[in-house]
């Protein structure tokens, strides 16, 4: 004759705050907590130091079109001789013989003298852009057909063609000779390496490394350690459901991990903001990406925390079960950079978390694709000795950046990925809670 259903579901917040507070104080007393947090900090600091070092060094300026060289040793660079109509290969023909004679230009005028002026966006179809800054294409000595070597009827331009094949986007670049052929390596590479760094430390350092490493060492023992030491008896002798204990312990873990991730993320944003290339003293533009990195890492630590806590309940040596998961996630992280639309990624945590970062990058740096494209083209290798004309930084940036999967826009990509991650966390909570509920404790 039960008059009312038996219920323990009351005073949630009091029990929750008691267990969360308790868990936080317990972490504070454990040396292992400080070791794990310290190691994470040192590891990221090292990467930041490397970044600061790279940003502090000069990127060698290359004369991509070879017009700064004085081949005939008459004291006049090739570019100047071509512009003024003398023979760059003949030491007896140079502007110094003109009346009145013309002084030789400084060599530096002919290095990095024609950079990118690409004023288009990434879209399917053919677009023309580019401008001949140094006048070596618009040269009055050239014929119209020489000025329009890509045959589109517009002299001195670049054709950029995006086309789709088998669901993938490819591009072709046809440039008129002498257009945007001598870009500024230092400006491009500094920017590209900065962007690549933000993406790589965000994706690998924060979301993957912190996202797995912190829960692996801090969440696996949340319930397991209490069970093996016998102290779980105190908590379970109270009118509280085991699924509640599981949840509140995990929340306590997040109470230490989330502030830690936020602090490290802000530190990263400050360092890259001050050190990165910028016209003003600070790169405000990147803050949106850092925000996404922090958020994605928080979501990853939430889902992995629930999962690893559950593995600890399942088996005393749950950390061994966690390692294959970590390996799988590492593989998925690499896969997401190469093939962000791969089907397998839907069965990972990291795939969704990285989608948040990719979405933010797409939103904050809308012309990232074009930027990578121009870096890979790198002026088209006008000087034939420069076989690989791509610029430093374009390769890594291309590797670390990818489009959010599922063909979603930046905004809906973030929403979908967040919902999926929350769903995963709830599933792991239920699974972990159910295992814990059925567990006999000696």
């Amino acid at each position, binding site marked *: *004759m*039960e*008059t*009312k259903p*038996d*219920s*323990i*579901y*009351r*005073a*949630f*917040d*009091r*029990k*929750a*705050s*008691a*267990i969360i*507070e*308790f868990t936080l*104080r*317990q972490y504070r*007393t454990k040396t292992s907590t400080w070791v794990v947090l310290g190691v994470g900090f040192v590891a990221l600091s090292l990467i930041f130091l490397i970044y600061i070092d790279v940003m502090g060094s000069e990127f060698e300026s290359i004369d991509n079109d070879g017009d700064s060289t004085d081949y005939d040793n008459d004291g006049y660079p090739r570019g100047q001789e071509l512009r003024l109509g003398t023979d760059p290969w003949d030491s007896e023909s140079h502007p110094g013989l003109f009346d009145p004679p013309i002084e030789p230009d400084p060599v530096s005028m002919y290095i990095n003298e024609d950079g990118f002026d690409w004023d288009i966006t990434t879209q399917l179809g053919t677009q023309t852009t580019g401008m001949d800054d140094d006048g070596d294409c618009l040269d009055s000595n050239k014929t119209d057909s020489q000025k329009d070597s890509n045959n589109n009827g517009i002299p001195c331009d670049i054709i950029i063609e995006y086309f789709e094949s088998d669901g993938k986007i490819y591009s072709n670049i046809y440039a008129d000779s002498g257009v945007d052929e001598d870009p500024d390596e230092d400006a491009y590479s500094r920017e590209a390496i900065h962007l690549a760094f933000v993406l790589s430390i965000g994706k690998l350092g924060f979301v993957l490394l912190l996202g797995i490493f912190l829960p692996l060492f801090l969440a696996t023992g949340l319930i397991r350690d209490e069970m093996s*030491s*016998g*102290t779980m*008896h*105190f*908590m*379970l*002798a*109270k*009118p*509280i*459901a*085991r699924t509640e204990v599981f949840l509140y312990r995990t929340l306590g873990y997040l109470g230490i991990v989330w502030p830690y991730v936020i602090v490290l993320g802000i530190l990263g944003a400050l360092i890259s903001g001050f050190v990165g290339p910028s016209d003003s003293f600070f790169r405000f533009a990147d803050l949106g990406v850092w925000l996404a990195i922090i958020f994605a890492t928080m979501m990853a630590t939430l889902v992995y925390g629930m999962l690893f806590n559950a593995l600890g309940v399942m088996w005393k040596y749950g950390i061994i079960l966690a390692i294959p998961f970590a390996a799988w996630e590492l593989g998925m992280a690499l896969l997401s950079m190469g093939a962000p639309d791969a089907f397998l990624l839907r069965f990972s945590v990291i795939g969704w978390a990285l989608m948040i970062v990719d979405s933010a990058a797409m939103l904050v740096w809308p012309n990232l694709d074009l930027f990578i494209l121009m870096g890979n083209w790198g002026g088209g290798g006008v000087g034939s000795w420069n076989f690989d004309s791509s610029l430093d930084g374009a390769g890594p940036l291309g590797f670390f950046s990818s489009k959010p999967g599922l063909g979603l826009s930046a905004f809906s990509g973030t929403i979908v990925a967040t919902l999926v991650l929350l769903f995963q966390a709830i599933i792991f909570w239920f699974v972990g809670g159910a295992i814990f509920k059925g567990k*006999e*404790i*000696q």
Partner: protein
Amino acid sequence: MIPDFDQQGKVETKEWVPEVAAPAVLLENVSKSYGRIFALSNITLALNGGVTGVLGMNGAGKSTLFNLLMGKLKVSQGSIKLFGTDPWKNPAPYARVGFVPEHEKMYDWMTGHGFVSTFARLNGLTRDEANIEADRVLEFVGLTDVAYKKIGQYSKGMRQRAKIAHALVNDPELIILDEPLQGCDPLARTTIMNVIRELGRMGRTVLVSSHILQEIERITEQIVILHQGRLLALGNLHSIRERLDKIPHRISIRAENPKQLAKDVIDIDEVFGISFPDGENISIQTHNLGAIHSQLPRIIVDNNHKVSTIDNPDDDLASILGYLTSGGSM
């Protein structure tokens, strides 16, 4: 529901309502087995009010019984009800239960007060209520002086008392203590025994386990004897003793003049044999321990004997178990 962060508000009133007529503890044909090994077999027991001692050798099933009651283990057969509710399925009855586990490990980094008040909040108390209750129970077990010291600095007896305080913080109707006296110094032992007796006087149902008869004897007369997972005896310690008195029993006396003492003692009707194990002791055999104990003091005093000890070597758990298991079922 807005989280009650300040924890000032009232506890919501939607509480678990126990069955009115149900006893605090009810076990029906409970068995717990691990594979083919039975840790407990076919226990039926109902307890309500008063202190009950659970006696048994190590491995008799005392801890298994308590872990079943506390929902840590699942019964293999039969049913367990605390206030009419199965604790494995629903931990709600623990609102009225206090449990002192046997495990030695505690949270050494917490203060006694912090430990008791933190776990009190798991009963749904606010922070303030928990602090007040913690002060109350710590005083009840005599730990007020060291309440704000780390548990790691406590002696074994203080640790046991802190565990008891933590179990009493919700003013429970059923208190389960697993070997609370183990490893305690005499002072702590006395304090803990007084606390348990006091709880019994307050009308609470108390279950306390031990493998030492004398300890239980000083706390309660109502005992349950477990042996190899079976319920061997249940009832008043006196009645069990009286039955024991009917079996051959020894009393060992250490005296200055054993031969003279033997001559005087042989006159008692109930004595059927005397032996001299060594020069200083005599050993009296009897069927009626009670009769000897009532006459012995008078004989010693009248004849001016110098006696240093009187021992009942058979009067311990092992011999009771020996008797009970050798066919003298109760």
